[in-house]
């Protein structure tokens, strides 16, 4: 593995290697001395074109626990008011000797471009690109499911997962659909038709407009953040109507099977897609998702940077 750009790039063995490695990383993180010398002398750059404090901190902590040097490069701006171009930024990082670039970008495909345009030689990790993918989020979600479902045996074959919300704009949903399919889970996407991409019937998952019909049949439900601004583009009439039709409140939560967990990639819109009662309930594993994110990102960084660069690339 040279880069991590899409959850779809991971075959089953590669995905399981990351998840198993993450489990070992998690065990080591329980010790008093959490730091490992593994990536001493390696430089990891967090290149964030979009604000995402939680993802950036998670990668930063992961890199630091492996003793890498971490540089946070906040290249703020927007596609309208561009600052320095991605290419020039990349060339700068290359000159600084970055071994890996963790990139968050508003533009779908920017990490792929960074990895393939001959601008840099190091590894590229996609930390969320536009409305495309967020593979480490999908990995940490799968990791969390492995810990909670099937008595922690780690087998996700046949596990049923509902993903509810703004699928159209969700990189989390795209990466999860790809990874969960690879791991043998069955995914049902739930959203109003306006928030589902054209051609979704060809995705490797089921689709429903009716959350109440889906909830009784899932082992995990993942609620996606829905931005209230979407209603200005006529995706739904009002926040209230969205919440009533697709939000997860206490009453709906009781439709879930006893063992089912509630997930959310954060940040949550309490009162919109998820009620406070659900967010604070025992089924909710959001806090754990955050902790697992560090372990998964440690695993990814170790597997990308912990060995010799692959030859012939």
């Amino acid at each position, binding site marked *: 593995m040279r880069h991590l750009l899409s959850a779809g790039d991971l075959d089953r063995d590669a995905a399981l*290697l990351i998840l198993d490695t993450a489990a070992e990383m998690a065990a080591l993180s329980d010790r008093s001395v959490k730091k490992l010398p593994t990536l001493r002398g390696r430089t990891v750059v967090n290149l964030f074109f979009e604000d995402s404090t939680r993802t950036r901190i998670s990668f930063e902590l992961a890199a630091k626990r*492996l003793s890498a040097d971490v540089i946070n490069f906040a290249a703020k701006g927007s596609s309208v008011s561009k600052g320095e171009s991605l290419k020039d930024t990349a060339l700068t990082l290359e000159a600084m000797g970055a071994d890996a670039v963790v990139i968050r970008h508003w533009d779908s495909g920017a990490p792929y471009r960074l990895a393939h345009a001959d601008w840099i030689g190091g590894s590229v990790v996609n930390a969320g690109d536009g409305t495309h993918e967020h593979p480490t989020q999908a990995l940490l979600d799968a990791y969390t499911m492995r810990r909670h479902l099937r008595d922690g045996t780690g087998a996700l074959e046949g596990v049923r997962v509902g993903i509810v919300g703004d699928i159209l704009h969700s990189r989390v949903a795209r990466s999860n659909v790809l990874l969960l399919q690879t791991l043998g889970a069955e995914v049902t996407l739930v959203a109003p038709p306006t928030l589902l991409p054209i051609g979704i019937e060809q995705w490797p998952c089921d689709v429903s407009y009716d959350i109440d019909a889906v909830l009784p049949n899932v082992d995990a439900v993942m609620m996606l953040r829905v931005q209230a601004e979407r209603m200005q583009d006529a995706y739904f009439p009002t926040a209230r109507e969205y919440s009533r039709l697709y939000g997860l409140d206490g009453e709906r939560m009781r439709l879930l099977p006893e063992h089912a967990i509630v997930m959310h990639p954060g940040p949550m819109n309490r009162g919109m897609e998820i009620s406070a009662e659900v967010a604070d309930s025992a089924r909710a594993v959001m806090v754990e998702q955050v902790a697992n994110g560090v372990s998964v990102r440690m695993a990814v960084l170790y597997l990308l940077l*912990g060995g010799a660069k692959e030859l012939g690339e």
Partner: protein
Amino acid sequence: MAAARAHDLRTVLTGDDIARATRRIAHEIVEKAKGASDLVLLGIPTRGVSLAQRIGLAISEIEGIEVPVGALDITLYRDDLRLQPPRALESTLIPAGGIDGRTVVLVDDVLFSGRTIRAALDALNDVGRPAAVRLAVLVDRGHRELPIRPDYVGKNIPTSGLEQVHVRLVETDGADSVEISSAREA
């Protein structure tokens, strides 16, 4: 093992030899530690863990008390990470009582350059502060590159640098034996 070309496999320890060696090591450990009360055995994956369990069993038979046995994966502490593709991690399992103030016996199958043990000492350092650290190995084949010396040795087997030592154990390989193959230069 696949790296070995044209082999002349030569058995240097049989299953019985290995059984005798582990039992002797168990006796020596108890004798030197004046009992087994403060001992913790940590095997270095993969075969070191099996050996540690065997030695632990032998000690408990000798002393009549359970000796805590664990595993210490040293992958993340290796100094040759950049020379090979990334390796999958093995489990690290520190016994519930921890290692602080105890005598830790590191157990490995073959002692060669000493670099693995160097990494294990680093790893141990991040786990806690033992009163003492000892080293038990089934085979010492020489060629040390670091000032490391085993406290308990199953068998000293002088080898040439080109030879390879193959340790097979029931737990991982289906049978107990130690063999040497002389890989001739191609």
